[in-house]
């Protein structure tokens, strides 16, 4: 399987009756994702593209055991919905919603860690294991099954990088965004550990960006613990300091969070650095023997 999910993963959609929920549920079903139920308070009893809708996660999960939940709930209600899912023993939460208050994200992460629940996001495009499942909003046509794992802090930049690889005939094992907020449920380092343990993944690509110190932290892990080749692209080289570049987390404060610091730390840990998205393909080429090796 890829990391975090596979074709057997049973999914609940929270916020399934909203405009985005309805549209994205259809796209996930088309991809073959195993959506077992939806939740929308006050809309229990309806169906969305054949998926039964419940008022509460508890009711949905008691009828349809589920492994994961994807949230399309509006930002002010994400905290409530996430804690509801955590307390219903759903093991994996994918929070797509943008603009979630940081204090709510902190609270969710606290509760999830205590309960042993994995949270991806907020502000994530979700997870795709090509040809297996999609618990996310990414356009499916640009991904292809293969052995490259991609972890990204950004959504659409993940699409660009995966698209570049697919175009060069390099498929992916699992692609995911960890979320672009200052506080996210699962950090870069943790995802790298999962990729290192994953049998399908042979090469790992990091798509980073300015702000925070996740890449710097990850560099230590790569140096000490990773055997698989790692390639990284960092966005925001030309970003001015002190300005928030779209994502709440993408800001250079003083000397902290610059692209240069991330690039240097990763390079020292043995990571190959791509200066442009298209360089990634060419940096992977030397590893084709590893990629083509069976098992």
């Amino acid at each position: 399987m890829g990391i975090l999910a596979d074709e057997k993963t049973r999914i609940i959609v929270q916020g399934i009756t909203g405009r985005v929920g309805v549209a994205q549920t259809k796209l996930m079903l088309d991809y073959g994702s195993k959506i077992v139920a939806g939740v929308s308070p006050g809309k229990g009893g309806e169906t969305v593209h054949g998926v039964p809708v419940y008022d509460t996660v508890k009711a949905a999960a008691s009828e349809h055991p589920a492994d994961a939940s994807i949230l399309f709930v509006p930002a002010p209600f994400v905290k409530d919905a996430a804690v509801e899912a955590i307390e219903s023993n759903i093991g994996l939460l994918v929070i797509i919603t943008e603009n979630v208050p940081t204090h709510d994200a902190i609270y969710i992460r606290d509760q999830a860690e205590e309960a042993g629940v994995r949270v991806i996001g907020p502000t994530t495009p979700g997870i795709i294991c090509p040809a297996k499942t999609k618990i996310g909003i990414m356009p499916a046509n640009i991904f292809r099954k293969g052995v490259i794992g991609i972890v990204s802090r950004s959504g659409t930049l993940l699409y660009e990088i995966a698209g570049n690889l697919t175009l060069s005939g390099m498929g992916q094992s699992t692609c995911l965004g960890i979320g672009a907020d200052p506080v996210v449920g699962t950090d870069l380092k943790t995802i790298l550990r999962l990729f290192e343990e994953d049998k399908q993944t042979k090469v790992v690509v990091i798509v980073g960006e300015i702000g925070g110190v996740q890449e710097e932290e990850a560099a230590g892990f790569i140096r000490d613990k990773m055997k698989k080749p790692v390639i990284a692209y960092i966005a925001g080289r030309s970003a001015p300091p002190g300005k928030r570049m779209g994502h709440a987390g993408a800001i250079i404060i003083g000397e902290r969070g610059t692209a240069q610091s991330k690039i240097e730390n990763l390079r020292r840990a043995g990571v190959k650095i791509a200066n442009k998205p298209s360089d990634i393909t060419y940096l992977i080429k030397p590893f084709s023997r590893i990629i083509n090796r069976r098992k």
Partner: protein
Amino acid sequence: MMLFEYEAKEIFRKHGINVPKSVIVQSPTEVGKALQSLSLPVAIKAQVLVGGRERAGGIKFANSLEEASEKIEELMRSKIEGKVVNKILVEEKVDAKHEYYLGITTDQLSGKPIVMVSLEGGVDIEDIAKEKPETIIYKKVSLSRGFFQFEARNMCQQLGLSRTLLQKVSDILYKLYRVFDYYDAVTSEINPLTVTKEEEVYAVDAKLEIDDNSIFRHPDIDLRLDERFEDEIEKEAIKNRLSYVKLDGNIGVIGSGAGLTMATVDLIEAFGGKPANFLETGGGITDELMEKAVEIVLKDRRLKALLINLYGGINPMVDAAKGIVKAYKKLKPNIPIRVKLIGNQQEEAWSILETAGILVVKEIQTEVAVKKLISLLGEQ
């Protein structure tokens, strides 16, 4: 959203944190009346959102009414790091025996608030952390459990304060956490917390940044967009919940997703072009929003070209295309425009754009679009 010092102090005061007596002044004519309620000497502080305000000339002191009016007038006319001075805080000067640092911020790695206190205040916390890290006492806090008064006392005890100061400083540290928690703060900070020789303590500076995503929970906070954003284009973008950063080139950039937009800006520079801005739509594109985004970027008179870079994941590309066409027909821009658009509904969106005469780049690589646009500019 960063609050002005006077706004932060007002909140701190309401939460029981001792701040110096002060008056806000908006014109030199108000000075006389303002000074009636204050005792001299006074500090005269420009209310601008600039780091290192004193070094930048934004803080002055006065010993008499005449001196105060003179300096206020001078500050009102000047700009501090390019920022207009709309308001001045006139406040009783506190004589410092010691200056401490108290602050709470979010530790991104652990995902927890971190409470910090140090006896080495008056300089940036980054500098304290670099030069005397051992002087910072800190504690990571569980937001759901909260931060207790005894924990504040335990922290302050490690500083070796006198009994009186231990009580006063730990009380303020605890209250500062309450403000952080209540206001969904990114950072709440007192630097310096000034201690007089009589062991009185005052928050002489106050910093409070509220998480933009939590503002909706705080209707008592006045947005004061006109004071916070001087640039008309930035203000317009904020009002439409678009993320806009002005850069110093001539190629306009609109992207869906911050990472993609940053990468687009980087690529323009890498291929020898100069980006004029960064504008990111987020995941809530509608045709109105897209139309607004194009309008906002085209307001910039420096523009020689425009690149729009979109992915249809959560964003509806047909609506995006319609919005671009609306703005295009309305403004009839006389500069080259390229739209790169990939993902769900791409064919339909391409046809909407092409029908309106807008050139579309259909390759997935942003680099292709960037190179095309830059070579076009070179030919001009």
